[in-house]
């Protein structure tokens, strides 16, 4: 088991952003996290990546407690935030070098690992260019390469394909599938794209208003809604019960659109 949470909860003043979540993610699994804006997906990920302490409950990632040993958790995970996390004023190579140093990749291994990562992400030619000149797809690949340099067991990806064209999206997913096959890296992915969830995720959790309202494989979730149902139907049926009360805050929307603009 790579991730396990018990009654994991995060409150912001009166708002319960994540409400007593129990979750297990197995080794080598691509785990999809879906739900409407403001459902608590990003808050959950920010807790699991130790960016945000939980209000109550327990969680272990790669065998380490997120509250008691955050540094050990950080050493074993990679995180690709929804926001633009590559530094536009550095080149692709320099971005990777920064990550290698932060993660304590030994000096003698750095050059080789960076070269391999650049090659794998098809960025070798652009390595010397400033990241601010990269396309959205290149930036995403660079960010994924940065988060994989230290060989993490678990990779968190927050909306990895938002704002990308279909070709760039497919490239990103193919790289992730390769990674799953070659390194058995466990991945937790949030996305609003039901086609991606359906196609690439081994298991899925649907969140709404901080609660986990359904978990299972795409097949199981679709079957639970009715014969011939699509993932869109699952989403609409299970979340739509309370349509009209969109909880996504101004900040959520600003971040999301900002990210789209930056990547697009």
């Amino acid at each position: 088991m790579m991730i396990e949470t018990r009654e994991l909860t995060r409150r912001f003043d009166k708002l319960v952003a994540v409400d007593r979540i129990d979750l297990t993610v197995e080794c080598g699994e691509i785990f999809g996290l879906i739900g409407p804006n403001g459902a608590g997906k990003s808050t959950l990920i920010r807790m699991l990546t130790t960016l945000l302490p939980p209000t109550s409950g327990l969680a272990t990632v790669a065998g380490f407690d997120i509250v008691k040993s955050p540094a050990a958790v950080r050493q074993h995970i990679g995180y690709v935030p929804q926001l633009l996390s590559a530094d536009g004023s550095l080149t692709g190579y320099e971005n990777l070098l920064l990550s290698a140093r932060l993660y304590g990749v030994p000096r003698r291994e750095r050059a080789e690992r960076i070269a391999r990562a650049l090659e794998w992400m098809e960025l070798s030619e652009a390595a010397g260019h400033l990241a601010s000149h990269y396309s959205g797809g290149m930036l995403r690949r660079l960010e994924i390469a940065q988060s994989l340099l230290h060989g993490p067991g678990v990779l968190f990806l927050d909306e990895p394909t938002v704002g990308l064209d279909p070709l760039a999206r497919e490239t990103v997913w193919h790289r992730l599938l390769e990674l799953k096959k070659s390194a058995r890296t466990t991945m937790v992915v949030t996305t609003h794209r039901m086609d991606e969830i359906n196609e690439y995720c081994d298991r899925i959790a649907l969140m709404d208003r901080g609660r986990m309202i359904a978990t299972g494989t795409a097949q199981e979730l679709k079957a639970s809604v009715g014969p011939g149902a699509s993932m869109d139907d699952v989403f609409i049926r299970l979340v739509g019960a309370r349509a009209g009360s969109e909880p996504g805050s101004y900040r959520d929307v600003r971040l999301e659109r900002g990210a789209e603009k930056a990547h697009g």
Partner: protein
Amino acid sequence: MAEGAIASLKRYAAQAWGVAAAEIQKLVHDPLELLTRAIQPVLWLLLFGEVMVQVRGVSPGHVRYMDFLSAGILAQSCLFVAIFYGISAIWERDLGVLQRYLVSPAPRSALVAGKAFSAGVRALSQAVIVYLLAFGLGVGISFNPLHILTVLVAIVVGSALFSTFSLIIACIVKTRERFMGIGQVLTMPIFFASNAIYPLSLMPVWLRIVSRANPLTYEVDALRAMMLNGESSAYGLACDFGVLVGVTCLFVAIASRLYGRMGY
């Protein structure tokens, strides 16, 4: 045991250096920023300095006022650069670059120390500008290499101190707008309640006490003693550097506690 300690110290240094190196690399990509910073010290020395030289009583007696002022303006121009450094942290937070730093296993203090050091290096360009200008104005500069080296160290430490102070403010206020307001408000008292442009002996007692508690006074004291011929430190270089290094360490410790909360 000792080997383990050395290994973790080396790792810590590599992580802090990784952050600093990335910042320095950005300057190499875009050195124009440094040129625009040359304007302020030039204006202070040429406009303010040339007029104040005419005022009787402002000179501390044994040195010419322009000599006295040049060291103060060097400290001031470094202060003005450093005090707005925190805004880059807010910028990085809004972009998402900060998250990349915070999910890495590097201790918060290594990140803060790396940022502080890079701000110190950034300020060195001010020394080049002020030395050239002061030389042109006939200021009695000491070209003893040891003195110049001490000046450079004082600038790096002083700028690290004020940039970390700036980072603390940024962690507290969290938005660019609020930060700009507070930055303006802070700069003037730090500058005027110091020995940068007039000797403490001209001040009323209460202001003299404030100035003695102001780290900028010790930076100016060290700069003045080392930059000018035949000038000596009023408080002793050991005291000057003791205060600068001590306060920097204190600020790094405080900023390290706050920096992680920027990711919330």
